[in-house]
């Protein structure tokens, strides 16, 4: 396989194709017949997915740095370039995106009844933008893609959404735009500083890593970036846009939102917050704040989820809880924690995506999402119930499913560095059962009473095609996550080493009474890298 890919020169063009093929698809879908749009969009997205599969083999699991790098100058005067690359952190995010987009498109065949061409075009545009976010290695380019994801999502919620779609769409847009504008300020500051220190205008990620920043600067920039990403994650208390957006969004919108868009936040933590601002990232106040917010997210949203009357809102809240585990894992600042966080990201993408698909299927049958309206459905829809129960179990992290591997490693990592916080977070395991099981019971078990519920149909073959790979992956990752872990490890290690090196230098500088470190040390004790001279 590797040889085949090499002969095709795969690593040279794959990343470009992954961004531009969906864009081409947008044009084709708009140009196609209304009736054909969904078929075309689906096969197109499958094509993109198959293309992305090649990354598995083309990726060199022993390297920690960016691979398949390519750079083309874009706005030379400002040092903006169109440069792409992937590492162990972004590899699986890209594959998750192409995978869930295909399934989300297949899952919207019945749900989307109006303006189909526009819808599928927007889905493909969203795919392109999200992949762009994960593979951009130029901070400016990253920002462009990051903001670009808002546009299709805004329309998907605003046009095809439920009753309060406008409110939800605007809330979603404003919340996230507010956060990312602060990040833009941060990026521009970095740019200015880089120009000052390095002497050339640049937005390249690799260059910005070389920019020496004082502790205070790092804290401010960290805050700006962290706000942008925390809204996306979302971190308590910036999460209230999520339930509204999820409830109003059409099924495929919810799937993509949960499976991929939220990951952009935690991906940003890993890609930017930790490497760019390593001193701030291990500042005790910062770490404690993030961990505490993550833990509150886990417990608080579990409680809130448990009393939701609307099934979709319940699942939306559980997303916040899951992402809390990711935040915990990342700010554990060790290999176990971060790898665990990454697995939770993947697992949450699969299991929560599947949950939203299943709830969408339920909605198509019953035109309601109120949990109390259902009951006893397992008797008339056994396949449906089976798929739902498997997914729900993966979601609450039962061992043998992907959820467990992620949560276990994330908690293990957190326990290594912050036992008390990990202890409290582990209680989330109980409350996961507390929110999920009553819902499963009320919907699928109990007595089959109403006639509407009696007439609910079981899964169609199309729906089985959607759910089968998702359920299979949940169990496969649950039993054999090693191929994923080993591909992530070098990159994760690199991030941690960078953070630790900065921490060590910082500690040495601040406790070293002799000033002969000279020009290499700034006033508040940050080691300046070579670029300064």
């Amino acid at each position, binding site marked *: 396989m590797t040889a085949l890919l090499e002969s095709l020169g795969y690593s040279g063009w794959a990343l470009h194709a992954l961004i531009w093929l969906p864009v081409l698809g947008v044009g084709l879908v708009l140009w196609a017949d209304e009736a054909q749009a969904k078929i075309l969009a689906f096969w197109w997205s499958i094509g993109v997915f198959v293309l992305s599969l090649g990354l598995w083999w083309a990726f060199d699991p022993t390297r920690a740095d960016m691979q398949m790098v390519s750079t083309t100058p874009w706005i030379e005067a400002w040092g903006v370039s169109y440069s792409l690359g992937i590492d162990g952190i972004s590899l699986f995010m890209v594959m998750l995106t192409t995978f869930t987009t295909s399934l989300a498109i297949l899952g919207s065949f019945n749900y989307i009844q109006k303006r189909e061409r526009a819808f599928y075009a927007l889905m493909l545009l969203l795919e392109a933008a999200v992949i762009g976010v994960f593979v951009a290695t130029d901070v400016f380019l990253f920002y462009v893609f990051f903001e670009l994801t808002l546009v299709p999502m805004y329309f998907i919620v605003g046009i095809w959404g439920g009753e309060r779609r406008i409110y939800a769409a605007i809330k979603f847009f404003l919340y996230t735009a507010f956060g990312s504008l602060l990040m833009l300020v941060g990026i521009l500051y970095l740019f200015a500083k880089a120009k000052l220190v390095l002497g050339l205008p640049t937005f390249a990620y690799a260059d910005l890593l070389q920019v020496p920043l004082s502790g205070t600067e790092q804290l401010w920039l960290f805050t700006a970036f962290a706000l942008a990403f925390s809204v996306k994650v979302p971190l308590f208390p910036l999460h*209230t846009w999520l339930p509204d957006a999820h409830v109003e969004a059409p099924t495929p919108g919810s799937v993509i939102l949960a499976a991929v868009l939220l990951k952009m936040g935690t991906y940003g933590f890993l890609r930017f917050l930790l490497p760019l601002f390593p001193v701030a990232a291990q500042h005790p106040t910062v770490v404690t704040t993030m961990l505490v917010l993550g833990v509150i997210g886990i417990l608080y949203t579990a409680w809130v989820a448990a009393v939701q009357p609307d099934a979709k809102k319940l699942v939306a809240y559980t997303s916040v809880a899951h992402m809390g585990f990711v935040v915990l894992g990342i700010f554990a600042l060790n290999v176990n924690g971060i790898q665990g966080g990454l697995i939770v990201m993947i697992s949450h993408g699969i299991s929560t995506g599947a949950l939203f698909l299943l709830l969408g299927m339920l909605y198509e049958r019953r035109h309601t999402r109120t949990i109390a309206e259902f009951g006893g459905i397992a*008797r008339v829809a056994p396949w449906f119930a089976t798929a739902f129960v498997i997914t729900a179990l993966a979601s609450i992290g039962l061992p043998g499913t992907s959820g467990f591997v992620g949560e276990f*490693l994330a908690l293990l990592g957190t326990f290594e560095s912050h036992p008390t916080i*990990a202890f409290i977070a582990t209680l989330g*395991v109980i409350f996961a059962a507390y929110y999920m099981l009553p819902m499963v019971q009320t919907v699928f078990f109990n*007595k089959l009473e109403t006639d509407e519920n009696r007439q609910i149909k079981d899964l169609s073959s199309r729906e089985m095609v959607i759910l089968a790979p998702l359920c299979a992956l949940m169990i496969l990752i649950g039993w054999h996550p090693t191929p994923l872990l080993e591909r992530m490890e070098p990159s994760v290690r690199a991030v941690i080493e960078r953070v630790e090196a900065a921490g060590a230098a910082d500690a040495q500088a601040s406790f070293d009474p002799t000033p002969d470190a000279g020009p290499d040390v700034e006033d508040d004790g940050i080691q300046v890298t070579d670029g300064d001279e």
Partner: protein
Amino acid sequence: MVSGVFASLIALTQGGGQAAAEGAHFEPFLPGLVVLLPLLGFLANGILALRHGRASADAVRAGGEFNLGGPDSRPSTHTLPTWIGPGVMAGAFLITLVNFGRMLGVHLEAPVVVHYWTWMATGTFTVDAALQLDQLSMIMMMIITGVGFLIHVFSVGYMKEDPGYPRYFAYLNLFVFFMLVLVMGSSYALMFVGWEGVGLCSYLLIGFWFADREKADAGKKAFIVNRIGDVGFLIAMFLLYKAFHTVDFVPVFAEAETLAYGGALVTAITLFFFLGAVGKSAQMPLYVWLPDAMAGPTPVSALIHAATMVTAGVYLVARSSVLFALSPVASATVAGVGALTALFAATIALKQNDIKKVLAYSTVSQLGYMFVGVGVGAYAAGVFHLMTHAFFKALLFLGSGAVIHAMHHAYHSTHRHEDAQDMRNMGGLKAYMPITWATMWVATLAIAGIWPFAGFFSKDEIIWQTAAFGGAAGAPFPTLYTIYWIIALAAAMLTAFYMTRMMVMTFHGTNRTGEAEAKQLHEAPATMWIPLAVLAALSAFGGWINVPEAIQNSFLGGMGAFPMSEWLHHWLEPLTAQAHHIQEVNLGELSHSAPFGGGEVLWAVLSTVAAGVVVLLTIRTVGRQKIVSVAEDTTELTGISALLYNKYYVDEIYDRFIVQPIIEASRFCWRVVDARIIDGTVNAVGLVSKGIGWGISMFQTGSVNTYAFILTVGVLVILGASLF
């Protein structure tokens, strides 16, 4: 069932493991297949269940109920599960037997670990998917596959007419798979997979008849309460990792003694593990799920909630014997919780009328004994009681299942809706079900601790070891252990009472089922009574594999005629030796006399005589009581009777002080914190911006002239400003 007998025969004839040739090599025989077979069974039955579910769903949709034997059903949905379900169990049991035979032939010093693949590897933390074969896991495998096979066979008869027949076997096979993972996993992490997996199966099987809300609720309760314990297990694993950077059994136990004896870390680890055990093995205060779990089919109660899953906590402590031995505080806690639970549950069982509830509380109580055993360092005794309990309690549950089956049929045939599980509706069943009656008496005598039945040896061993441990020179809390010992003796007497009461109410006296119904009562079919008979044999003689040395040469042990002295004890020696060594170094020799004097033989005789007297007295007193059927029963319970009958109101207390407050807090979080405070702030920001915009928009008069005027003024101002 034949092979079940075979197993014990082979075990008995081949002598102890220590008699084997030195240096021989243990070659595991297809250990993966033991685990894999039930999994394959689950998959096959699961597919059958889903296929059957489609047809069943159509029937339900049409407003009817699917008839499993009816013309619409494929014959395969009944025949195939009948063969696959018990079949895979037979296969797993045979392979286990081969391995057991091989292990008997060699003296296995260190556990054999069979690696399959790397499960998780982050770079700093690695766990393999690997199975560990040693003396302890072998005993557990024998119990799980052996007793499990018998219960599968029993289920064929018991569940015959249930519309969910293939689904039932799918769940049951899945349970066995996870249970085997639990006992065969080579690390705590893998054990945890089985640990939560069996909890899942328990959840699915308790709520098997999920159309009944109460039953579905019971399943949910079991899962959530179990998860409280699971948190303890997880934390303990994290602590272990912090201490040893691994959670694999072999390296952890090898390095365990680097931890300080009685230190905070090892105490924390063991106490958290014990929290997990408390949840899974239904000890105080987390026992509340087990009585409710009786909502599941009765063979499930026998397999999961008596013989195997609930004993996982005991297995966990026995497996971690080295760690527990290092922490006297944790060990005392284990024994204390066990003793209290043994007494507490026994008192509740005194007043229950539901036959399965009596057995459920009895199980909780007996599990308490096992914890007393492992808590006083008598790990082999705890495992021994685990084994004998698996025999006689499975038998009791299956017997009660046969009774309920018969009762249910009787009421069904006359279309009366009476409680088929309430003992007040039974009575005099001896005449209708002689085999069930006889086998259940064997089990009752075994659990009551009457010589020479299995329970006598195992229970007596535990009680004796409690006394001996408390009397050791360096025993940490001698008075405490004396109290445990007294509690254990008292609970044993209560056990004899409530079990005999159950037997008398069910099988003796006059029949209270109803005249028309009584004619329909009949003995269980062969698929059901043969497992009962096999288990009865095991309950009767199973205790003789581990006759304590002191008793062996007295008349209780057949005057030394029997060669199996302390077989199980020696068999487990390689695994418990380290713990015993730690104990001996720190506590010194165990005492050879009870707190009030007297040796092992004396107290064994005393206890069996006392239990016998209680049994006889109970037969007399309960037999003379006038019991009336549920419909006619109008007695109001008062005082202690009401307290016991209502289980000390523990469920109500939990609901009032834990469950409801959490739900209230959840509502508060949602409606006040989330909707008002957080979202309110967000919306307020939006409103303020909107308000500002609205104010400024007042300048937009819409009149061109105004705009023009402002424009001109503006230009003039700028001009003026630039001029001056």
